[in-house]
């Protein structure tokens, strides 16, 4: 972090913690600091020091009342009951049922839309190549937690297939990459099958699920044991998610 030769290593940690709190670091550097915070109490103390001391700067920001309906949204999210399979003692909503969780992943979808057209053209799916369109093609950019696009998914012209293209070089993980659909208005993920992190793949979607591939339906990728989730529901971490939208 400190390429300045006049800052010594001890000061380096102090500066890094301050830079993190100040907010001048990029996303990757922020995640790196957060990883270290869990293991380095000294760095965590520095961050706490700066959060406490610099926090006063926020006094310069005038309070702005949020819109009245925002509390209802928050209340709705925290009121979601835990799913039946979850530990009954927990009163907290599960990750999978949390609207907030999905929203966090849904952001930035479409950021890659332009770049993705090139990929779709290559696959023969671009509007100019497709037969007379019946409806605008649906696609989704599946972003990771930091917003980086990991996969691009597009529904085929016939409506019963889904092409999934890796958009980033993912760290190779021995686990299986499983694609899920959360239809609009539903909270239960439905498996669409396994995909490949290293190459485009075309999945055939059963008719009952194909009809649910609608705008705003969520697609997500989780890491699962070889062969896919043994339970029929996601069991591993979600590495990418995004919503279907018309191109």
């Amino acid at each position, binding site marked *: 972090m*400190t390429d*300045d030769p006049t*800052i010594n290593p001890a*000061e380096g940690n*102090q*500066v890094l913690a*301050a*830079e993190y*709190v*100040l*907010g*001048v*670091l*990029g*996303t990757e550097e*922020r995640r790196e600091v957060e990883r270290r915070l869990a293991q380095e109490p000294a760095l965590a103390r520095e961050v*706490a*020091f700066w*959060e*406490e*001391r*610099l*926090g*006063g*700067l*926020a*006094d*310069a*920001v*005038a*309070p*702005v*009342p*949020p*819109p009245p309906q*925002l*509390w209802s*949204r*928050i*209340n709705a*999210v*925290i*009121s979601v009951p835990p799913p039946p399979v979850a530990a009954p003692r927990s*009163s*907290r909503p599960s990750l999978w049922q*949390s609207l*907030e969780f999905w*929203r*966090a992943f849904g*952001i*930035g979808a479409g*950021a890659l839309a332009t770049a993705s057209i090139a990929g779709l053209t290559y696959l023969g799916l671009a509007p100019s190549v497709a037969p007379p369109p019946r409806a605008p093609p649906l696609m989704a950019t599946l972003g990771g937690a*930091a*917003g980086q696009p990991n996969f691009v998914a597009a529904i085929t012209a016939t409506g019963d297939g889904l092409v999934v293209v890796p958009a980033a070089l993912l760290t190779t993980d021995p686990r299986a990459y499983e694609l899920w659909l959360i239809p609009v208005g539903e909270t239960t993920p439905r498996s669409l099958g396994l995909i490949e992190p290293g190459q485009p793949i075309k999945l055939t979607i059963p008719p009952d699920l194909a009809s649910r591939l609608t705008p705003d339906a969520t697609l997500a990728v989780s890491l699962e044991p070889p062969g896919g989730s043994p339970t029929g529901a996601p069991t591993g971490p979600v590495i990418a998610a995004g919503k279907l939208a018309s191109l």
Partner: protein
Amino acid sequence: MDADASRRQLAAALARVAGGDRRALRIVYQDTSAKLFGVCLRILNDRGEAEDVLQEVYVTVWRKAATFDPTRASPITWLVAIARNRAIDRLRVTAVSRRMEPIEAADAVSDPAPVALERVELTQQHARLAGCLEELEPRHSAAIRAAFLDGITYEELAERMRVPLGTMKSWIRRGLLKLRACLEA
């Protein structure tokens, strides 16, 4: 209510939130949402984005309230840190599109006068911070304030204040080390 009483009340409400009390979260929300919304709005400069982030912030508070340690941080500091971190992460995601927009008037940051700082009742610690910032070179403290309030990267700060990236890094790092020494003195 004085600052100490409000701090104690907020810490007590957070403890109840940690126990799963939704009414306590409502109290925390009522007491702090305008402040946190202002912080998010300042960073994101977009009401819709700020509303989404504010929602995430209170859902995070709901889930993470048990990790709040009142012996180590003040409740409002903890909440502001969550709000800023969420808003900054969101800002980084949307930064690509924002960079396409015309850069705001550069003089937006050349006015570091802490108008609101003078209006609010400063706690001792905040007064100390203000005093230590005064001791820095004005451009350095202006850069530190702008970085904190707007959550922007070194690159954007350098662009805004029209100095080379290396210069900006040096200003901020030296400023921070000097600030640290002053705050600890």
